[in-house]
Structure formats: structure tokens, C-alpha cells
């Protein structure tokens, strides 16, 4: 049934685009507060209420508009507040700062220095958002509107030309032309596989069947990765618009978003967005007055990592055990409910309206030969600016980690970066200058995956890292195929043994043999890539393995059985701090005399190491 607000034709949509983009001009100022998951965890919600209250009190609600936006990306510094049009950037804002911000900055144009971003290297303060290095080097296409619009307001999305790409395909393009455009753009799947999106669409379009499905894979399961979540939370309409365009091109009549139940805000914002889209006639029967009929349902996942695999995901939507099957028949021919089905991930769908609006030729100009456009990474681990970054394909690891990420905190040395989620590989410092794209990452034994990037410093033990990722994969294997179920478990057991100091001669070769069996013989991508952490760390850090096995030493001082704490006499001042803090009374010594550690009592908790101000405690 059509609602009264339903858009009857394309022209009406353009009217709305105009109306809501002009609205911005009427506002004196807008205050964008990040209400993404990271900032919420830092009390962004009470910050927002404080602003609302203050606006009311000052009676400035008419002219100053408050925007609860999605994630801005620089999560490390949240909660974030950006005052536009001047783009004044405040970090770590607390509710008690609100009165001051309103009085000084909003009403008097004054800058509050204590809330500004400070450059770590020279302590210089930066006022404008775009001048902060974290943002300066990014190319925010997909993420572009995330800090600007209220994800629950379809009107905001109209105001940034929302749904105009859909209007364009419905008026100017045949489904065939849409597919050609996507093919030409060179867009590859952002979920990990990197399969050419246009080709996937084409095979689903060509598959026989009256009923076809499109699915948005929002089962983002990699630890530390949250770009899909932030897109759904911050700009759900861009994903919906992409899906409608896909449905038009493919000839699908029903869509699904398979989203994790652990993403309540994403689900909520998506539900609001779907509701609004239906109200405006952008979903349902005869979209924008054309012959296109399409709607989207949400299917919530139960948190199994393997359900991000396309065939397992489809079975899960059907209510069956989420277990991958061999793709002897492609899902584009027989997928969900045994109908032709096209599945793309959140970020892929969100790229579609951009390509349609700005053209494949423009899109192709970004990126490398075989990887076009931008990619969002979640930059986490031992890096100064943790957060979400969107960069053009082909940018180097160094640029991402050092220019955007601000390098390694605490003056430590960079050791490796793990890309592609738990089953990605670890890339060493020698390769920091490599360009980041699908093929290069695979070449060095890692992968793009969904864009996780975990930075590790010199204190990281690479054997322990491999063990950690295997522990995750051992749990998350669905257990269907032998190599993944049992092989990963055996890998994990051997790694465990090595990190506990029980490594044996021949363990490395055994690890390689099992890892290769798992890689070559597993059923789905989870199994095939699961040995990557093992194989890549052996490839680049073999000596570290050898030291564990032969010398029974952990060079990074992580594996507890393989190092001791010791106190350097020449550095120890006898301040007694470590002695007082030791929970085991394992440190002895007189005031102003060098202390020493009784190894039998030490449990290697590392407190002495952390508290010593003279670098006198060392790992040996």
C-alpha cells in the first residue's frame, strides 16, 4: 500500500533533493556529534542530551542544528564534536564541556584550546577537522557523509543527493547498462574475496528463475573490524540505495540484510531507514512510480563467524545450520532457497551509488590497476590513531600506519601488521612500502579480507600471535570438513606447545605440512585461509620460532615460560617501587641498594617491568 508521502515519480525525488540540500543553508551552524559505537561507549549519549538541554536553555534550537551522526572514524579521540561550517574539531568532549562550547564557540566564535587536537610530534594544536593528519590523507568517498548526516533522517540523505543514483538508473539506464557500468568501474567485493562485483551481478542476472534475491552481508566477524557496522549505523540509506540499484540490474524482487545480533544500533538504524524508505516509496511496489518492485528484510545472525561465508549465511537465513557447502553450484544460480542469489557486503553495496553518480571512468581513476576505488580499514592495535580510515587502493602500508595512524605509541618499534582479519597474514617492517591492494596483499601471504589492520610493535611475539589467531579459528570452524576441524586444532596445539616451551625439533615442518593440508583441502574460505597466520609468521619470522624451540627463549618476552625478569644493577636506584608493588614478594633489596628478583617466586605478571622508572627491569 502506498503511503501519502510516497514519491510518485523521479521529478518529485529531485524536488526533495533540492529542498533538503537547501535546508542546510538556512542553518547558522550545525553541531555534529559522533554517536557511533566507540563514542557512545565514552558517554556520547549524555553529551548529546547536555547539548539539547543547553540549546533549549539558550533558545538557539531554531538556528543551530544538532546532528547525531554515525562514526567519524577517529575513535581514539572520542567523543568527537565538529562545529560546522567552520569544521572546528573538538576531541574527548565531556558533558561538562557543553556550556563552554555553546557560550564560547557557538555563540561567540571563540576556540577552546583544551579541546583541540594536538599533534604528537610538536604539540601544535589543530583547529579544523580536515587539517588533522588522520583525515588529511584519507579519501572519504563511502564514508564521506558519515560525520555529516543523521542516519535516522532520510531527509538528511536526500539533502546529500540521496537516491539520485537510483533515480538515474531508473530513468537513464537499462539493467544491462548498470551492470556494464559496475563492470567497467572495476569494483571488487569488499568482503574479502575481491570477486569482480559486476561479473557476479551478471551471472545472477543471467541465471534462470523468476525469483531472485540480493543479500547484504553484514555479518562482520573479524575481531577489531567495524567498518560495516559503522556504515550501517552511520549511513544506512547508502547501503539500501546500492541494494535497490543491484536489484534493478539483476532482476531481483527481494533483498535481505544479514546482520549480527551483536550490532543492535546497526539493526535499529537500519530498521528506521527501511521504514522511511518504504514510506517514501523507495521500497515496495512500483518504486518511484516505475515497474521496479523490491523490498528488504533483516535477518539477524547468532554470532557464528562462519555465517559470514556466503553459503553458510544463506542457510542461516533459511533457518538451517549455518554451514558452508561446496560451491559446485554457484549461489548466483542456486543460493538462498535454491534461487539465484547475489551477495555483496555492506561496503560493496555502499560503493554502488557513488559509481553510478560519478561514473565508472572517474571511479577507475582511483586505485591501482586491478583494485579500483577506496577501501575502509579498521586500524587498531599498537597505533596512535586507532579508528576507521578510508584510503585509495594502492596507498602504502607506511602511509596508513604512520601518516594517518600516527605511528607506534610509546616510542616503540613497528614489528608487523596483520591484515585481513584472523585468517590474514602478518606483514613485516621490510614490506612497509608495499602498496595496499587485493593482489599485493595476497602476494605477500596475507589478504585484504574485510579490511582489518592490526598493528604490532616490538613487544609482540609472533608465535603467540599465530597461536592467538588460531585459537579464534579453532573455535569458529563450523566443524564440517576434516582439515579445518581437526587440522586447525592440531596447529593450535603445536603452537601452544611451542609458546609453553615444549617445542620440538621438526615442529616447524609439521606446522607447515598441516597448514598446507588445511589450506589445500578445506571446504570453504575460512579453512583455506585459516593457516595464513601460521604460514606468514613462519615465512617472515622463522627465527623467532627457532628461538622458541631451540633456545627456549621468547625474544619479545611474551611467552611466560620462555623469559625471566631481571633487574640491572647499574640502573636500579633502589627506589623500592617494584618491591612494594610485587604481589608475590618476589623482589628483595634495601632502600637505595640495587634490588633483585627471586625467580622461584616470580609469576611474571610484569608489574615491576611496567612501574620501573629507570628501565632497570628487563626481560631476559
Amino acid at each position, binding site marked *: 500500500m502506498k503511503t501519502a508521502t510516497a514519491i510518485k515519480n523521479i521529478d518529485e525525488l529531485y524536488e526533495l533533493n533540492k529542498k533538503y540540500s537547501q535546508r542546510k543553508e538556512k542553518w547558522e551552524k550545525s553541531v555534529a556529534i559522533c554517536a557511533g559505537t566507540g563514542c557512545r561507549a565514552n558517554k556520547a549519549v549524555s553529551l548529546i542530551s547536555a547539548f539539547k538541554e543547553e540549546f533549549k536553555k539558550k533558545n538557539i534550537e531554531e538556528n543551530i542544528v544538532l546532528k547525531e551522526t554515525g562514526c567519524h572514524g577517529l575513535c581514539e579521540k572520542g567523543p568527537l564534536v565538529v562545529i560546522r561550517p567552520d569544521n572546528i574539531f573538538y576531541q574527548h568532549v565531556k558533558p561538562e564541556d557543553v556550556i563552554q562550547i555553546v557560550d564560547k564557540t557557538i555563540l561567540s566564535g571563540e576556540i577552546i584550546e583544551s579541546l583541540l587536537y594536538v599533534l604528537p610530534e610538536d604539540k601544535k594544536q589543530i583547529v579544523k577537522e580536515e587539517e588533522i593528519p588522520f583525515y588529511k590523507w584519507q579519501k572519504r568517498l563511502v564514508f564521506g557523509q558519515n560525520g555529516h548526516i543523521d542516519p535516522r533522517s532520510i531527509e538528511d540523505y536526500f539533502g546529500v543527493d540521496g537516491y539520485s543514483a537510483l533515480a538515474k538508473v531508473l530513468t537513464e539506464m537499462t539493467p544491462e547498462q548498470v551492470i556494464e557500468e559496475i563492470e567497467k568501474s572495476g569494483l571488487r567485493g569488499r568482503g574479502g574475496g575481491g570477486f569482480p562485483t559486476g561479473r557476479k551481478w551478471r551471472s545472477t542476472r543471467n541465471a534462470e528463475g523468476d525469483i531472485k534475491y540480493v543479500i547484504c552481508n553484514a555479518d562482520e566477524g573479524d575481531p577489531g573490524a567495524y567498518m560495516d557496522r559503522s556504515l550501517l549505523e552511520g549511513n544506512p540509506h547508502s547501503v539500501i540505495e546500492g541494494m535497490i540499484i543491484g536489484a534493478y540490474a539483476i532482476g531481483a524482487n527481494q533483498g535481505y540484510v544479514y546482520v549480527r545480533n551483536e550490532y543492535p544500533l546497526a539493526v535499529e538504524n537500519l530498521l528506521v531507514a527501511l521504514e522511511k524508505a518504504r514510506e517514501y516509496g523507495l521500497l515496495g511496489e512500483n518504486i518511484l512510480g516505475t515497474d521496479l518492485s523490491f523490498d528488504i528484510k533483516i535477518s539477524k545472525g547468532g554470532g*557464528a563467524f*562462519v555465517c559470514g561465508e556466503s553459503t553458510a549465511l544463506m542457510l542461516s537465513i533459511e533457518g538451517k*545450520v549455518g*554451514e558452508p*557447502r*561446496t560451491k*559446485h553450484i554457484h549461489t548466483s544460480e542456486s543460493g538462498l532457497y535454491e534461487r539465484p542469489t547475489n551477495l555483496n557486503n555492506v561496503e560493496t553495496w555502499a560503493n554502488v551509488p557513488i559509481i553510478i553518480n560519478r561514473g565508472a571512468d572517474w571511479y577507475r581513476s582511483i586505485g591501482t590497476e586491478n583494485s579500483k576505488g577506496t577501501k575502509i580499514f579498521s586500524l587498531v592495535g599498537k597505533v596512535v590513531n586507532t579508528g576507521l580510515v578510508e584510503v585509495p587502493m594502492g596507498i602504502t602500508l607506511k602511509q596508513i600506519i604512520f601518516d594517518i595512524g600516527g605511528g607506534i605509541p610509546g616510542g616503540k618499534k613497528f614489528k608487523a601488521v596483520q591484515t585481513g582479519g584472523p585468517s590474514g597474514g602478518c606483514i613485516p617492517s621490510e614490506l612497509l612500502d608495499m602498496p595496499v591492494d587485493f593482489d599485493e596483499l595476497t602476494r605477500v601471504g596475507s589478504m585484504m579480507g574485510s579490511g582489518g589492520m592490526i598493528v604490532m610493535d616490538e613487544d609482540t611475539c609472533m608465535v603467540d600471535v599465530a597461536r592467538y589467531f588460531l585459537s579464534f579459528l*579453532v*573455535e*569458529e*570452524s*563450523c*566443524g*564440517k*570438513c*576434516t*582439515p579445518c*576441524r*581437526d*587440522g586447525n*586444532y*592440531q596447529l593450535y*596445539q603445536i603452537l601452544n606447545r611451542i609458546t609453553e616451551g615444549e617445542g620440538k625439533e621438526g615442529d616447524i615442518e*609439521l606446522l607447515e*605440512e*598441516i597448514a598446507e*593440508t588445511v589450506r*589445500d*583441502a*578445506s*571446504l570453504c574460505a575460512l579453512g583455506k585461509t585459516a593457516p595464513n597466520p601460521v604460514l606468514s609468521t613462519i615465512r617472515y619470522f622463522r627465527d623467532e620460532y627457532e628461538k622458541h624451540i631451540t633456545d627456549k627463549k621468547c625474544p619479545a618476552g611474551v611467552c611466560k615460560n620462555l623469559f625471566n625478569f631481571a633487574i640491572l644493577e647499574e640502573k636500579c636506584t633502589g627506589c623500592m617501587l617494584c618491591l612494594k608493588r610485587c604481589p608475590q614478594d618476589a623482589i628483595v633489596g634495601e632502600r637505595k641498594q640495587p634490588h633483585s628478583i627471586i625467580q622461584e617466586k616470580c609469576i611474571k605478571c610484569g608489574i615491576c617491568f611496567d612501574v620501573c622508572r629507570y628501565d632497570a627491569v628487563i626481560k631476559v
Partner: protein
Amino acid sequence: MSNIPLQINGRELVGKEGQSILQIAHENGIEIPHLCYDKRFTPTGACRLCLVEVEEENGLKTACTTSIQPGMKVWTNTDTLRALRKATLELLISEHNMSCSTCDRDGDCQLQDYAYEYGVTENRFPSIMIQPGLDNYSTGDTAIAYDPSKCIRCQRCVKICAEVQCVEALTLRDRAGSVQVSTGLDVPLKDSPCETCGQCISTCPVAAMYDRQAVKMGKTKDLVKIRTTCNYCGVGCQIDLNVNRNTGRIVRVTSETGCIPNDGNTCVKGRFGMDFVGSDERLKVPLIKEDGKFREAGWDEALDLVAGKFKELKEKYGSQALGGLSSARATNEENYIMQKFVRAVFGTNNVDHCARLCHASTVAGLARAFGSGAMTNSIEELRRAPLIFVTGSNTTECHPVIGIYIRQAVLFEGSKLIVADPRRISLCEIADVYMQQRPGTDVALLNAMMNVILEEGLADREFIEERTEGFAELKEAVSKMTPEQAEKITGVPAEDIRRAAIMYANAECASIVYSMGITQHTTGTDNVLSLANLAMLTGNVGKEYAGVNPLRGQNNVQGACDLGALPNVYSGYQRVDDADIHKKFEKAWGARLSDKPGLTVVEMMNAAAEGALKGLYIMGENPMMSDPDINHVREGLENLEFLVVQDIFLSETAELAHVVLPACSFAEKNGTFTNTERRVQRVRKAVEPPGQARLDWEILCDVARRMGYSMSYPDASAIQEEITELTPIYGGVHYDRIEEVGLQWPCTDRSHPGTKFLHEGKFSRGKGKFHAVSFLPPREMPDEEYPFILTTGRLLHHWHTGTMSRRCEVLNDRVPFGTLEFNPDDAQRLGIKSGEKVAVKSRRGDIEVPVEITGKVARGTVFLAFHWKESPANALTIAELDPVAKIPEFKACAVRVEKV
């Protein structure tokens, strides 16, 4: 399907479109190892042992899931593959409890075989098996034992349960290394939808699933498999009795994939219902009753007594005062001997058997309509029939393997299903149309369907004109029965009748499946005629995948009829009152024979009660449980001057006998059974009979000799040879032709291949005959005094009068006692709770039985199976007969239900 040329290991092969690499390789003798694949269900691709290299393809492919493509070049046994397989096997062994020396399946284990082949001798990896002995869904189950420590998580059991048995009782729980087989919510197997078919055991490549009763009863090397035909229902499953050569006992039952007709499938009774053979309660010596008590006797004494007494009665009262009941449980040979004995030695045609109680109306009805009273088509055809109309048959429970074929057809082959049954049987759940007619209103329902077909112009004019007669009368008869009119009689909404009729008529081929819900009525013959009318009206007979298919109840009820254990015909339905036939048999048997049709089962009981019948010889039947109105049966049997019962247990009937003779069970004898699709199949001796028990035919021959008639055969095959000579439809059925696969009659001579489906081109009687049939209500309708309709039948886990099935541990454990199915609304109205014991009373008797409240039965209807001697349903039923077929109305009588 087009041919696809390809290469495997350099060999040029040609396969069919849609085949997998594994299939074509196996067809050509190229072995590719596999643990999760079983040809009975879709490939899983989980074990990864069948990985092969395909030139110009990325990565390795699982041979089980990869379809062959033209020009494909496949390598199945390269060094890389062998290394990968060895590593994979090592991984499997690390999770498998390698306790081969104490394992029942040592020597019959795929994992063991592959470990041997790939030289996996050392265990390089620490064991990661699930701890043995932890409780799981099968703990304490009497039938199936699941040992997770031996499970290699291949999923075959789960898949066979879902795709072959179609019940989805099994599932996988947990993930990664903790994956285990379980039931939904881990409920005990007994409380799950499990039908205890044991297919999970049959597909398990290791010993993770095994028959609980067979554990420690002998390893594979100790077991000998003897192929025989199951002795329960009429499907005639080919089963292998696994006998321990040291103990001589049946340890377990298996069945081989590909065998006809059951393709390796069995039901709970076939797989777990064989303990009765070795029961301590088996009759081991002849018993003679003295002063109301049995005493043991020697064979000579017993046989002299039997022969002497019958001779005396024959001389005193004449031949017609004697009679014999033959047995649908016994072999063809034994039935032939029984009827020969009664006819040639007693000199009467008073021979009948329990077919009278199940399909007499089929024999009568289909003979009139088509000229031959048997299943027109083959079981196999039901696996793919485009439309199946099931009425009056709870196929899933009573003919379980045919039941699963119907489920497979509907779920996986796109077949349509119409079900008409007063009980909401499990097939209803997957039916396209379900009609719940009131008991005994079938003619109204069928006539209304035909009314719609004629109204809609969907009748097959050409077929009617060319192949039938009597159409005008039929048209006239059904014109009055509009769907609206039928709705009033049957309770089925007119719209459903219309939908069913149109769906049936529009199907490319439609196959009717029916059983005792149709036949066991006073209008049984009319019901059968109506089904024949419906089939002929739409041209759905005389071709593959169409037809009228009565499912015969007992293992050899078809054969007992075929071999002449009927009062009006000799073997092969040759009439006793036909002068030529009479002459032929007198000559062959060298005896004077009566040309007067004899008495039927119920008529014999009446005659006994009235004193006209004086002596009765019962072989393997239990009328004291199976016949209607058993109080009346008791009256008759007690009134006899001499009753001999020959059986394997001291049945309720045997207790009334003057002499009881111990006979062999099916597992102790050679012979043949004829299944419901007219297939004559071998029965083979697997174990020795207990005590002094003897073969039925041998005992009969001995009695005959002692009565002065010479009858002797060296073995069962010699009897079969006599049958072939005298019985045209069995003319070509020789043992040497049915060693592997049985033959379907008509099979008239040695070169005849047997008959897959009947009436092709021409009906047995020439033209098919329509019969104008009008609706008549059941004889006893509910009234104020007896307000409920009682309908009776069988359950999956038990068999007939329970003499065998109630002596089987698994069957008794699954269903230990009978319950009265009672509609929830009725229960609420009468304040009766589930499990409460009630009194059920009819005009003929009363019983007490606990109640099961279920939506299976409609309001006003109650159901009780007739297996239970504590609560015998036939104490209530009515002995009113169909006037043509003389079948009693088991399916409808009036009862009252009272709280006790």
C-alpha cells in the same frame, strides 16, 4: 541427457550430464576414497578424501560434488593427492577412538580400510577425540547406540535421516571439534521424531552408530549374512540376517543399497524386530490338551491324534464339517500345501485366511473392474509418480518403506500428494490437499471427485471410449453427488474436494495408493470399485506411474491369495466351480475335489458357533485377536469338536486348541513370499529351528499321509515346481530365476520377464468396467447410546496380533502398550485427561485402555490399534460383512467411552 566425454587418469570415458566425477569414476572401476558420500543422498563434500585434480581448474575439487564437464581431464591418484589424503586420514584418526580390537565393526570399517591403504600406521597427532562414555541422546536407548568418540563427523547419519527417511530427527550440535550428532534440543531418541528405522546405522562408515542389541554379540568376521525377505508387511523388503556362526543367533539385520524393492531401506520392525525368532517362549514340542491343560507330546503321538481325529470327523459329519485356515505369514509353498491338504485330504473348499479380513474387497472389486485384483504398478514407480493419491492407508506406519518413497517423491521429486483419511496421519503434513472424511463415507467423496472431473470436462474421453464400458451408468450415478452434497456426508469442504479432483485429473500420471481404510467396510467392494472408476475416468491405469495400488498388509498375503488359500479358487485364481479347472486339479492331485466354493473366515466362525463346522486346522493365524467380535470367535472355536493350531507361539487362539504343533519361523525355512507388487521373492533359512519345531509343509504332508493321502516333497523348491505347472500366472517362476531379484507375476513361462505394471493396452478382463456405485453409510452408526465411531488399524512399531512384535525389546520399548486416540475437544467435554484409563464399550464387548489425546482423530472418532491383548480392539468391532467380499467392517463401529 547428453553424453559427456572426459578423461580420468588418462582414460577416455563417457558419462551422462549431471553425473559427478565420483559417480563416473566408480562406474568405471576407478576407486576414489570417500567417507561422507553415500549414493542414497546428496553429496556433502565434508571428509575431503575424494579431492581430485582437474586440469586447468584452480585448486582441488571434491569428486563427489563436482559435475563432469566435456573435455575435463581429471587425475585421482597423484602423489600430491595421496599425501593430502594421508594427512587428512591422520587427522581423522586423531579424533577417532581407534579401539579396533574391541570394536564390533572391526573388519567392516571404511576408516580402517583407508588407513590400511594409505599406510597410516603411526599416530603423529595427539588424540582429540570426544571423551568416550559421555551421555548423549542415545544413552540408554534400546535400539541405537551412538558413540561420539568413534564419530568422524561425516554427517551421513544426519543426511540419511533428512533426505532418505525424511524425518530430520538427527542434527548436529555445537561446532568445530565439539560437533556431535544429536537430536533437536538433545532430547532422547525416543522422544524425538525418530522412526527408529536404523538408516543412520546403515550409512555410518565406522562404528559410531551401531545396533545396541548387537554390541559385543560378534564381530564382522563372526557374522554370516543370509539374504531373505522380511516377514512383516507386504512391502517385501530384502534384508540380510546377520547370524553369528558360533552362536547360531541373529545378531543384527542389514540391507543392501540397490536391492529391489527396498533399496537398502528398512523400517523399525525389519531392522529391530527379529528377537522373536530366538525367544524363549517359542513352541518347541507338540502339545496335547488333557483335562483342560496342555502336556508335552512326541510328534508321532500328536500327528496320529490329529490325523485320527480329522478322519473320524470326516467320516462322521462329512467333508464340509472340516475346514482350514491358511496363513499370510507362511510361504507360498506352505499355502499351496495347506489348500491342497484341505481340498484333497479334507475334501472341502473350506479354506481361507486373513486376506479375507484385509483385502478381500480389493480382490473382488478390482477383479470386477479390471479383471485382476492386485497392485497394478510397482513400488519403484511411486518414487517418481507425478501425483499420488493416498486414501485409507497410513503408509508411513503400515508400509514404512513405501511411505518414505512417497515422502521422497513429494519432497525431492516435485510429486503432488492428495491424502484422504479420517485420521490426520503424518503424510498429511506434506500433502497438497488433505481431506478428513468421516469413516465410511469414501464412496460419497470419490463420487464427488468424479462429479467435479466430469463437470470440468477433465475426463479422458479417448480412454473411456477405447478401453472401458459402463460409462453412461457411472455418469448417471455420480451426477447427483455434487461436492456440496458430499460435504454434508463426508465433512470435507466442497472446495477441497474440487481442488483434489482437479489436481488429480490434471496430473500427467496419477497413482492411487490405498489400503484397509478403503477395504475394511461393509461397502469395501464399492469403495474399491469407486477408486477403479476414478482411475479409468482419467485414463490413469495401464501405464507407468499411474494406476490403482492396494498395499497388501501381511508379508505374504498376496502369495496366500495367489496360491489358492481362498474358498472359491485354486492357485492362480482358477475357479473351483469351473469344470475344466476342477478336472485339471483332480487329475494333478489324484483326488476327488469339491466343486462347491467353501466358507470364508467369518462364515467358518459362524458355522462353528452354529455347530455346522466340527473340525478346524489353523496354521499360523490368530483369529482370537485378529477377527472381528472376538467374543463370538471364542464361542465358535470353543464349540468345535477338534481344533488344531500350528504356530510358533502359544497364541490366544492356540490356547483354545486340542493339539498345538510347533512350527518354524520364517528365519528357519526356505521358500518364497509374494509382496504387494506381485513380486515372488526368496525366503532363506538362516538359523536352526528351536527344539522339535518343524516346517509347516512337512507337518501337513505327514498328517496327509496318516490320513491316507500321499504327499511328499524333498524340499520347498519341489513344491514350487508343482506350483509352476498348475498355476499359469506363476508359470515361469523358478527358484534359479529369483536368486537375486524376484519376479513379478504374471510370469507365464521361463522366458517371461515378469510384469512391472498391469493392464497395458488391454485390461485382464478385456475392457475396464465402470460400476455405478451409490453411497451407503456404515452398518452401525453412532447414536445416543454409543456416540463415537471406533476405527482400528496398526502402528509402525507393532505387528498385527503382537505375537512377534511384542516379544521384541526395541519395539516394546518404543510402544509398550496400546492407547485410545481421542480428540482434544471430546476429551475436554468428557473431562478425560491424557493417559487416563477409560472403558470403551460396544454392543459386543468392552475393554479398558489408556487415552492419548491427539488431533490425529476428528471429533466423534476414536482409534485403537488391534495389537494389544490387554485391550483387544476386536472385542469391540462388528462382524458385519461386505455382501460381495465378505470382509468385516473393522473400520467403523459405534462405541461409548466412559471414565473408570
